[in-house]
């Protein structure tokens, strides 16, 4: 790779560090199936202009309702899908323009963890085969001779008994299956792990174990995470920064405490207030805002601010003018005409 790792590591940690990954103006539009080839072609605007960056060693949490584009974001960021428009940069290079060895290297460095651990594991492969599969493609990372030991090491690292390496996925509980998925994800020493709802399918008592595991691995291996979840408390716990998405756009982005405590967008406010636990922890100062209705269709999003149809603060200008991100602090911005008023509440 032409971009030396040293520049990134020498950069001042925190705000000034060069991003590991960057998404610039990402749009992802899917055509809607037509029964007859007449009339205008409709498109689902799953992502409609997303700018987001993830810095080395950082966890970027993403929250939002289903259908807001969270999972599409994960697929585009991991290179599984090419965006309709915009660039996805890994260490400054567009991942969709890389070729040959550079592309292999990028693929090795960006890994995904899925929501449903069972359906993401081949039921006919043993744990050893599953965790060893990445090395079959990237044999340069671990030559055949040392592979067995490496697999045992990985299993131990994710808290599984290495003696169970010859068992099949169905012999394990949901939490253990997710550990297998994580072992596969970190096998090739990636830099970036994209976690798409990694704990949503797990039981409450097991969730905390997996969150702790991800935390430990991040510290030991220096990983960056994109962490998508609908459990708002877990996102607060694990994230350095949080992005709120609504109908294919990032509507708020900031440090976790800024987004949770000095919320600048009425949608984030409503989302946070809908979680009973968050409301009670904060005492009486967080009022419950029950949003009416459902999110509008991403085929034909509302004009102006996309949230105006459900927003308790909506004014006439919200219907015609799409708000640009309003800076609330150096690290915190929200796409709302009234971000300053909202965050001051």
């Amino acid at each position, binding site marked *: 790779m032409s971009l030396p790792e040293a520049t990134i590591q020498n950069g001042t940690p925190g705000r000034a560090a060069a991003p590991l990954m960057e998404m610039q103006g990402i749009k992802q539009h899917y055509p809607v199936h037509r029964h007859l080839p007449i009339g205008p072609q409709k498109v689902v605007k799953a992502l409609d202009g997303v700018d987001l960056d993830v810095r080395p060693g950082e966890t970027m949490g993403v929250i939002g309702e289903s259908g807001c584009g969270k999972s599409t974001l994960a697929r585009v960021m991991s290179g599984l899908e090419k965006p309709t428009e915009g660039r996805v940069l890994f260490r400054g290079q567009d991942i969709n323009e890389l070729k040959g060895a550079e592309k292999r290297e990028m693929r090795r460095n960006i890994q995904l963890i899925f929501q449903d651990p069972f359906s993401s594991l081949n039921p006919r492969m043993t744990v050893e085969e599953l965790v060893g599969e990445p090395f079959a493609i990237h044999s340069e990372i671990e030559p055949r001779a040392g592979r067995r030991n490496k697999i045992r090491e990985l299993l131990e690292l994710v808290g599984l008994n290495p003696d169970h390496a010859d068992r099949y996925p169905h012999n394990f509980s949901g939490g253990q299956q997710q550990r297998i998925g994580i072992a596969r994800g970190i096998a090739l020493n990636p830099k970036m792990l994209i976690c798409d709802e990694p704990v949503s399918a797990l039981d409450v008592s*097991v969730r905390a174990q997996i969150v702790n595991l991800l935390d430990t691995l991040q510290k030991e291996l220096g990983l960056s995470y994109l962490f998508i979840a609908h459990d708002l408390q877990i996102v607060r716990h694990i994230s350095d920064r949080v992005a709120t998405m609504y109908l294919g756009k990032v509507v708020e982005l900031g440090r976790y405490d800024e987004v949770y405590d000095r919320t600048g967008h009425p949608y984030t406010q409503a989302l946070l207030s809908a979680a009973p*636990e968050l409301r009670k922890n904060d005492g009486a100062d967080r009022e419950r805002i029950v949003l*009416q209705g459902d999110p509008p269709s991403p085929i034909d999003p509302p004009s102006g601010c996309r949230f105006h149809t459900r927003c308790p603060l909506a004014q006439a200008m919200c219907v015609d003018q799409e708000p640009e991100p309003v800076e609330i602090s150096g690290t915190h911005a929200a796409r709302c005409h009234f971000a300053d008023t909202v965050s001051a509440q």
Partner: protein
Amino acid sequence: MRTQQTQQPDPAGDHPLLRVRDLDVEFDTSKGIATAVSGMNFTVQRGEALGILGESGSGKSVTARAVMGILDMPPAKVPRGEILLEGEDLLTISAKRHRELVGSRVSMVFQDALTALNPVHPVGRQIGELYRVHRGYSRKDAKAAAIDMMDRVRIPAAASRVNDYPHQFSGGMRQRIVIAMALALDPVLLIADEPTTALDVTVQAQILELLKEQQVERNMGLILITHDISVVKEVTDQVAVMYAGRIVEHGATDEVLNHPGHPYTQGLRASVAGEELKGQRLPAIPGTPPDLLRLPDGCSFANRCPFVTDECLEQVPPLESVGAGRQSACFHTEEVLDHVTA
């Protein structure tokens, strides 16, 4: 039918709305008998909301299905126990009487609204069917009643959407339709099995609000089954915490969740990622729940419990009273209670 069960429901009698007594449910599997529920005891009064809290495999849904009589038997069987609805044992009454009671006096809301609805019939017809079958309404009256019900669960423009099919509604609206069906025949007891698990947080808040409001308005009994502590806190008065087929703790929701007397409840409560834990490891419960095919001789939570002693490995701790209206199934409840306040 046993003679003592032939008594008719007596409105003047002081039967609780629902009393489940010593209920066991087992499943015959190719690998042996799995004990899904054992020694379950609880009551629900009119106007009371009981939460059943537990993770997958704890027996919470099986309990609900046993009450509704919709367990597949076999493989399931109920070797022991009584399910008394206003004094009538649902397990021993005739099939005819069962049909009269279940669906109208007791009804259920399922987790996945899309699979609970028939995709090839308009929602109005599905709601109206209840009135036609149970109350003998005409088509026209049934449709009017369906529209009325849809209005009451606040589906916008109900009259114009009554002929729409389930796929034309969003997840939250579908769940409202399922709730409308459950409430159509004015049940005295509503069982909601993970009613909001498939929904987004914003929609979850709407549905919980609707359930709570309907329960209070109709003075119904409500059993809310969930794995989510915050949902239980929001809606219920009483909570029963289940682990590996048994109730391990039971009592008033606020007390149980704020001052747990069972190490499992305590673990669940502690592993919620509160604000004060930012940057620290979450206090996770180690290990995984036991295999229902091979339950240990002693307490099923023993292998994950920080308070475990030899006694716990030898015998199952009974569910005993630990103060006003509270029960806990642990030999070390006192210690656990002290631990929380400390």
